[in-house]
């Protein structure tokens, strides 16, 4: 029998472990490196997106929706965990993916019982039209469908709390500034982390490594999400203080979202062989690749305390390893 959304157990809950990574740090010439292991929290393969699940489940329950609609890329973590949420919570789920039907997120979506609409040539516009059309069909069939956005105010609050969690994890006293490094897709995690830095770790900074967008576009999205969540004026003093802690880097994108790069594959292998750490080629692997490149060319201060935020996606590594690493 399907569980009610409000009573769901999401498995391993935060705090996620904070793991020292001395061997990887040494190989990069970094003085101090920690890994924030969000890949070990949550369910359905885990990841930072799981931090919002309890709140999201509660909000979805209050809508009375029987069908969840969402969109995502071919390696979307959100698609995987929400398809699982729907399955366990006894709701229907329909996923609109701008990738082929055999993309990993499409496969995981179907695995969790979701109906997958694979639209490999879709743009934002055609994807939107497909969702609108499906909403009308479902309404006509008497279904109560709700579209789940990539980011909500509540999601950002959950990600902000993750920085509070980091600040409370008792890192040894150090004169070094803290630089949090994270992969960035929708920008929601980065926006939430900025909010969290402002509240809990004001000496910290954030490096958001884009998985698919130009840096300027990602910065705009993060600004918009932050302004929406806080109600602050984008050019006001409080917002500018938060944005001053943000660096955005788009050097690791390669051919775009989901494309493999030799640099990311090399970084994945390095993390695996120095720390036994599993990452994947779309988000965490590219963030690691940027960290490697920036430590080599001196564009980050190697004397900073660096916290690499492992946002999850490990189940997709298995899909990636079906082919040889580009760096081999």
């Amino acid at each position, binding site marked *: 029998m399907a569980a009610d959304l409000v009573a769901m157990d999401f498995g391993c809950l935060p705090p996620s472990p904070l793991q020292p990574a001395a061997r990887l740090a040494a190989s990069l010439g970094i003085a101090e490196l920690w890994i924030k292991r969000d890949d070990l929290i949550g369910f359905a393969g885990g990841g930072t997106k799981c931090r919002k699940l309890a709140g999201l489940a509660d909000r979805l329950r209050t809508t009375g929706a029987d069908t969840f609609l969402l969109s995502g890329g071919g390696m979307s973590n959100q698609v995987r965990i929400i398809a699982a949420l729907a399955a366990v919570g006894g709701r229907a789920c329909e996923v609109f993916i701008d990738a082929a039907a055999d993309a990993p997120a499409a496969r995981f979506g179907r695995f969790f019982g979701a109906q997958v609409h694979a639209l490999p040539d879709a743009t*934002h*516009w055609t994807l*939107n039209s497909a969702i609108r059309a499906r909403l009308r069909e479902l309404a006509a069939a008497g279904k109560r469908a709700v579209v789940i956005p*990539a980011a909500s105010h509540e999601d950002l609050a959950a990600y902000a709390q993750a920085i509070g969690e980091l600040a409370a994890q008792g890192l040894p006293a150090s004169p070094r500034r803290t630089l949090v490094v994270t992969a960035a897709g929708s920008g929601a995690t980065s926006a939430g982390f900025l909010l969290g830095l402002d509240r809990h770790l004001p000496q910290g900074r954030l490096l958001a490594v884009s998985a698919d967008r130009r840096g300027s576009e990602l910065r705009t999205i993060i600004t*918009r999400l932050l302004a*929406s969540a806080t109600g602050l004026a*984008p050019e006001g003093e409080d917002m500018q203080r938060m944005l001053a802690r943000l660096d955005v880097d788009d050097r690791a994108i390669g051919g775009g979202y989901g494309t493999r790069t030799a640099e990311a594959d090399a970084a994945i292998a390095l993390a695996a062989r120095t720390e036994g750490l599993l990452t994947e080629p779309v988000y965490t692997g590219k963030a690691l690749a940027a960290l490697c490149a920036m430590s080599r060319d001196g564009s980050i201060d190697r004397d900073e305390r660096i916290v690499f935020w492992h946002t999850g996606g490990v189940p997709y590594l298995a899909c990636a390893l079906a082919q040889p690493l580009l760096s081999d």
Partner: protein
Amino acid sequence: MESIEARVRTFVRENFPVSSSDVPSDQSLLESGIIDSIGVLTLVTWIEQEFDIVVADEDVVPENLDSIERIVRFIERKAAGGQ
């Protein structure tokens, strides 16, 4: 009564705040990251309710909705009964 452009600008500013100053009329809203794909749904729903017009699926294209000036022209055309 506010102009259509003023109403559109207010909607964009309140729902997709990226800058205290207004975005240029011809700036792409999606390519610049101001609106995301789900944001298009929000925009279309608002246009239908605010101006009492029906937006067909084939209307949801960048030529109609990807900048302030295109949105204004689209609403004017629809409100006048045009295609």
